[in-house]
C-alpha cells in the first residue's frame, strides 16, 4: 500500500469516484445535521457518551472480567485474542470443530481488521458477507471504503454490473434483465442471500456493544440481514474489540440515541439485536465470544491517543471530512478510513510503515470531524500528537524536515535576522519566480501562484510611519 499522498493522487483524478463520494457524503451529512438538530439535549448526550466510554476505559480489565463471567454463566464461551493471528486461529478452529466449510457473516469491522475472510479462505472455508454493501464489495473483489457504507464509492450502475456478472459465481445469479433501480437491486440481493441464510450452520458477527453486567451483545443495523445471521445458524461466533464493553444496560440509552442519528441520520435504527449466551430451542445452540486486543491496550496506554477507543464507528467523521471526500476510503490503506482511521490505525498498527506514518498528516486539521463526533473525540488533537511521534521517529523525509524546522525556528526566534530576510525578499521580489522548483514547493506552485512579495515588510512600514 502506498503512503496516503500517493494513493490520494490517483483517487483525486478519478472523476466517477469523486462524484459518487461527493453525492453520498453530502446527502448523509445534511440528513445527520437535521436528525441531530431535533434533539435539544444533543450536547448533553454527547458529553454523557464521552464520559461513559472514558470511565469504562479506565477500568477496562474489571469490566471485561465481569463480561466474561456473565457470558460464561449464560452458556457462552469466551476466548481472548492478543492479536489478529491469534483471533484468526481461534475462529478457524471453532469453525473446523463444527465440520462446516462455509459461514455467513454479519458486517463487522473487527473481522475486517484481522483479515478474517482471507484467512478463512486460505483454510478452505468460504465466508459470505450478508450486508448489502459488503456483498457488493465482496462480489466486486473490491475493498470497503467506508465504515458504514463499504461500497459508498460505487454508484447504482456499477452495482448492477457487478451483480450481473458476479452473483452467479457465488450462488443464485441475478436476473438477466436487472436494472439499476434500488428496489430491483435490493430484491436480487435478497434472493441471493436468502439461500445462504437458510443453508448456513455457522454465523460470524461483531458487535456494537457488550454489556458487562449481563453478558449481552448488541448489534444495531438497518437491513435485518444481521439478525438472520445471528439467529438462524446453529453456531454463532462473535469477534469483538475489547473497547466495545459498556458496564450496564443503562449506558446503552445514550448510544442508542447518538449512534443511529450520527451514522444513518435515523432517529432509531430499524433493527437492534441483542443476545445473551444461549437458550434452548431459541437461536444458536453454541455461542463463542472472541475478545480482540490487536493493539488496543497499546492505544489505551497513550494518554492523548486513548480517546480514539471511545469511537462507536458511526462514520459521521468520514461524511464531513473534506479530505475523505476527495481521496476516498481506499487511499487510507486501512480498514478504518477517514479521520478516525487516521488516528486509530497508526495506534493499532504502529507508525513503522510508510502508509501508517503518513496517516496522521492526512488532514488539514479543519476540525469538522471533532464537531460531529458523538463521543467528542478531539481528532485534530490526536492527529497532532501522532505527528509528534512520527516526527520524533525520524524516517523518510522527517530528518530533513526537522532540520528545516529547526533552522526556520532559529530565524523566527531572532527577529533581527527575520527582518533582514524579509527585506531581502522584498527587495528581490521582481526576481522571484511564480513557480518554485523542488518537491514540496513545486507541488505548491503546481496549482497556485505565489503572491507577489510586498515592497516592504510590515515591520519596516511601522518603523517609518509610526515610530
Amino acid at each position, binding site marked *: 500500500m502506498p503512503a496516503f499522498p500517493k494513493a490520494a493522487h490517483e483517487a483525486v483524478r478519478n472523476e466517477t469516484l469523486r462524484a459518487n463520494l461527493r453525492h453520498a457524503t453530502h446527502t448523509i451529512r445534511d440528513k445527520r445535521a437535521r436528525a441531530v438538530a431535533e434533539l435539544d439535549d444533543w450536547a448533553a448526550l454527547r458529553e454523557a457518551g464521552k464520559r461513559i466510554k472514558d470511565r469504562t476505559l479506565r477500568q477496562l480489565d474489571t469490566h471485561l472480567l465481569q463480561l466474561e463471567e456473565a457470558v460464561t454463566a449464560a452458556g457462552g464461551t469466551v476466548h481472548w485474542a492478543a492479536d489478529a493471528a491469534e483471533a484468526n486461529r481461534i475462529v478457524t478452529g471453532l469453525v473446523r470443530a463444527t465440520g462446516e466449510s462455509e459461514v455467513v457473516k454479519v458486517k463487522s469491522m473487527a473481522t475486517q481488521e484481522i483479515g478474517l475472510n482471507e484467512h478463512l479462505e486460505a483454510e478452505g472455508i468460504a465466508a459470505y458477507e450478508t450486508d448489502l454493501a459488503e456483498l457488493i464489495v465482496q462480489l466486486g473483489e473490491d475493498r470497503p471504503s467506508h465504515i458504514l457504507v463499504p461500497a459508498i464509492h460505487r454508484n447504482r450502475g456499477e452495482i448492477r454490473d457487478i451483480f450481473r456478472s458476479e452473483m452467479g459465481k457465488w450462488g443464485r445469479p441475478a436476473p438477466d434483465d436487472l436494472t439499476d433501480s434500488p428496489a430491483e437491486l435490493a430484491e436480487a440481493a435478497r434472493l441471493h442471500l436468502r439461500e445462504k441464510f437458510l443453508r448456513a450452520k455457522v454465523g460470524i458477527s461483531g458487535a456494537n456493544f457488550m454489556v458487562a453486567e449481563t453478558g449481552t451483545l448488541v448489534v444495531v443495523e438497518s437491513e435485518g440481514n444481521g439478525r438472520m445471521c445471528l439467529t438462524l445458524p446453529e453456531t454463532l461466533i462473535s469477534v469483538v474489540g475489547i473497547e466495545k464493553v459498556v458496564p450496564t444496560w443503562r449506558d446503552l440509552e445514550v448510544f442508542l440515541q447518538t449512534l443511529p442519528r450520527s451514522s444513518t441520520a435515523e432517529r432509531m435504527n430499524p433493527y437492534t439485536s441483542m443476545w445473551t449466551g444461549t437458550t434452548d430451542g431459541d437461536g444458536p445452540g453454541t455461542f463463542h465470544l472472541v475478545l480482540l486486543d490487536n493493539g488496543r491496550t497499546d492505544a489505551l496506554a497513550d494518554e492523548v491517543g486513548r480517546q480514539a477507543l471511545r469511537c462507536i464507528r458511526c462514520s459521521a467523521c468520514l461524511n464531513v471530512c*473534506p479530505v475523505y471526500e*476527495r481521496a476516498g476510503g481506499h487511499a487510507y490503506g486501512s480498514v478504518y478510513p477517514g479521520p478516525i482511521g487516521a488516528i486509530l490505525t497508526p495506534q493499532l498498527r504502529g507508525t513503522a510503515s510508510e502508509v501508517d506514518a503518513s496517516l496522521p498528516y492526512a488532514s488539514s*486539521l479543519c476540525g469538522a470531524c471533532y464537531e460531529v463526533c458523538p463521543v467528542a473525540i478531539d481528532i485534530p488533537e490526536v492527529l497532532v500528537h501522532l505527528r509528534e511521534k512520527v516526527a520524533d521517529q525520524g524516517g523518510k523525509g522527517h530528518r530533513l524536515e526537522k532540520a528545516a524546522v529547526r533552522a*526556520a525556528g532559529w530565524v523566527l526566534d531572532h*527577529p533581527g535576522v527575520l527582518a533582514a530576510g524579509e527585506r531581502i525578499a522584498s527587495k528581490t521580489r521582481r526576481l522571484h519566480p511564480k513557480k518554485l522548483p523542488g518537491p*514540496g514547493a513545486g507541488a*505548491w506552485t503546481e*496549482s*497556485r501562484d505565489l503572491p507577489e512579495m510586498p515592497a516592504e515588510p*510590515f515591520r519596516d512600514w511601522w518603523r517609518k510611519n509610526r515610530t
Partner: protein
Amino acid sequence: MRVALFVTCVNDAVFPSTGVATVRLLERLGVEVDFPAAQSCCGQPQFNTGYRAETEPLVRRTVRAFEGYDHVVTPSGSCAAMVRRHYPPFGADAAGLAPRVYELTEFLVDVLGVTDVGAYFPHRVTYHPSCHGLRLLGLGERPRRLLEAVKGLELVELPGAEECCGFGGTFAVKNPDVSAAMGADKITNALSTGADVLCGADNSCLLHVGGMLRRQEAPLRALHLAEILASTEEEPWA
C-alpha cells in the same frame, strides 16, 4: 485604550497591507496601537506538523513580546486560535497570554462593542469563514455582522462556506493533490456567487485560495477583512 498588534509572521512578510489596514482601522476607532518588535511567529506551523519542542522557544518569545498588554489584537483567526487553544499546556505564562489575545473581529465586536466601523466598500463580497476562526475560536456571526454594516457592500452567501479550503498549513505541501482539489471546489463555489471579492479573516487561507484564483486569472480577488473594514469614502482602500 492601548493595544498590542500581533501582526503574525505571514502578514509581516507577505501581507503587510493587512497589518497596515488593522492599524488604520483601530486608530480610526480611537485605539492606540503598539507594535512590540520582539514578536515573531506564534509557532503554529511547527506545532501542527508535530514539532512540539521546536515550538517552545517561539511560544516563550511570543509570551514575552506581549507582556503587560491586556489586549493583544491579531488579524489572523488561526494564530489567535493557536495561542488561545494550544498555548496553555506550555506553562502558566503561556496560559496567561491565551485569554488576552483577540482575533480582530472578536476585539471589535466584543471589546469595543462596534459592528459599524464606518467603512465604505462598494463591492459584491462573499465571505469564507476559515476553519480555525469558525471552529476553534467560534467567531460565529461577528465577521458577517461587521461586513453587513459596511456602506456600499453587498454581501452574498458562499455555498459550502464552512468547508475547509484545503490550505491547512503544511497539509498543502504534504498532500498537494487533495489540497488543490479542496481549493478548486472552494473557488468554484466562490465564483458561482458572482462576487468580485472573496473575503476572509485569515491570510493563510487567502494565500492558498488567492493563489489559485490568480493562476486562473479569475474575475475575483481574495482580500482580508481588515482591508475592507479599513476602507472609507475619504480613503478608499483598493
